């Protein structure tokens, strides 16, 4: 269920990128920023929030566990 909701969230955000509703609008947000540009700025923030959700709820922790079991290790952090 959780996985399905996350897939739905990703698909929805992808669809929301095609914002035909602001296509021809010349409205200025705060009197400065064209609404189409403002929308896509907000879209970037939404993408970051979506990544946070994915990291929190769909992190492939099993990959890290598998690697730890192999004994190969990296060097010192740079």
């Amino acid at each position, binding site marked *: 269920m959780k996985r399905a909701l996350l897939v739905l969230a*990703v698909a929805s*955000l*992808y669809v929301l*990128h*095609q*914002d*035909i509703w*602001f*296509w*021809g*609008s*010349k409205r*200025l947000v705060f*009197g*400065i*920023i*064209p609404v*189409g*540009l403002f929308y*896509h*700025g907000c*879209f*970037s*923030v939404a*993408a*970051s929030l*979506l*990544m*946070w959700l*994915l*990291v929190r709820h769909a*992190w*492939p922790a*099993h*990959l*890290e566990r*598998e*690697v730890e079991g*192999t004994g*190969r290790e*990296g*060097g*010192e*952090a*740079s």
Partner: protein
Amino acid sequence: MIPAIFVFIYLAVVVYIGVFAFRRSEGHRAEDFFLANRSLGTFVFLMSLFGTNMTAVAILGSSGHAFTNGIVTYGLMASSSGLVIPLTIFLIGTRVWALGKKYGFITPVQIFRDRWECAHIGTVIFAVQAVLLVPYIIIGIMGGGTTLSAISGGFVPYWFGGAIVAMVVMSYVFFGGMRGTAWVNTFQTILFLVFGVIAIGVIGTGMGGFRGAAEALGSAPATSWLLTRERISPYYFFSYTFIPLSAIAFPHILIFCLTAKRMVQFKKTVIFYPLCILLIWFPCVFLGVMANRTAGEIPAIREKQEARRVLAQQGKTMSPEQREVVREQAAGDDVILHLLQHYAPLWLAGILGAGIMAAVMASDSQILALSTMFTEDVFAFYGGKRRFGEPVQVQTGRIFVIVLTILAYVVALRAPETIFEIAIQYAFSGFAALSPLMIAALFWRGSTKWGALASTVWVALAVTAVAVFQQTTAAPPPGPPAVFWTVGGTEVLARTPSGTSVFGFMPVVPMVLVSALLMVVVSKLTPKPSAATVARYFSERD
């Protein structure tokens, strides 16, 4: 000349970082030179992965494109990348990292060869990747020469500027390998981020605020469309969401995914990636649009607008060659430089010029990636490492860096820049169409080497076909596309003012879809790798 001094200080710092990284290295080990010993921490990993993906397009190209096309630039190139790139890093990058840690892979072709039990098909994939990557290296040197010449007011000639940039990049890649490249990229990304904030403040103050400029742009019929997307087809806009798929197919990005010390380093990278894009692209696009209100104060921008007007009004009656000349005059790649030269004090223009140089010099990762691929996928694979040992392999990688940089410099001096700008257009689409390879290798048990070969050959043919079509067919003037092929009244192939359209979409859409289809169909028809190999890539939970 003062801005050029700041740029030279910046270049000296960059070389020092490379030499400092060399002191930290274990020079004889391939993993150390090519992957920084798989040891990058969270901050360096985020900043350098992001910086690796930011070429001159991020600052010069974005503001130039926005100057000519308006706010659509952000939606086309930035916000779609802010979703697709971190998503692919989350899904694919983490798996590639885990495979690298488990099995010691250093290049994507090593994964393909092992996953699909193939040898020479891997070499074919290497060759296609390498051919698509070379234009980036050449354009980086060209951009360096042009920018250094512009920042110094012509005091540094193009040939000398290009030579300096080539030498600097070659030095820190040669000495520092991946560690030097990652540290320099981190430094460069910090400069980009600072650049955007300072530039918008300084230029905004110089223009007396943006409110008046924005209202004037919106109310004038000649410029109001810049605040909208009314001149862009929704199909074209949608097509662009396929381009960021290229990121995870770029060898330098995949190789970078192998440098993280732990998988946890990916967490902050994918979360902050869209915000980094916002911080860099938003100011550049906004400033590019606002530059259209500075024609009264900046003669160079006035001349560009005049060229744009001539192209729109007389483009249909011009010859293709004349159109190309006027199109070049109207191009806005240097508007941000003009804005800075006009509004920023000299010393600040110098610091900001260093930020622009950082953006232009993004070819380091590609040079290192090609060196890594050559030494691992060709030299080591065909017996060089076994016969001569690992230290010789690393030295071969370093020699390859020198030879490649010199060759790129020689080509940069002789060939026109537009050729490589166009080549990069094709390369983005080509790498996007190669993305089904890694997706199939990691997520589909049934994929085969023959499916991979079919996709790769298709990508090579499709990129060549689009390149030939665009080179042999003159671009029409601004307005409707020139239709070349229709079936039953439906437009199949057309030449647009800026490229090619297939069924109204950019070529990248059919290229990716056909590549994926070939992978599926051919894999279904051909024998699978052994069960033992498949089991190493897919656990029970998959």
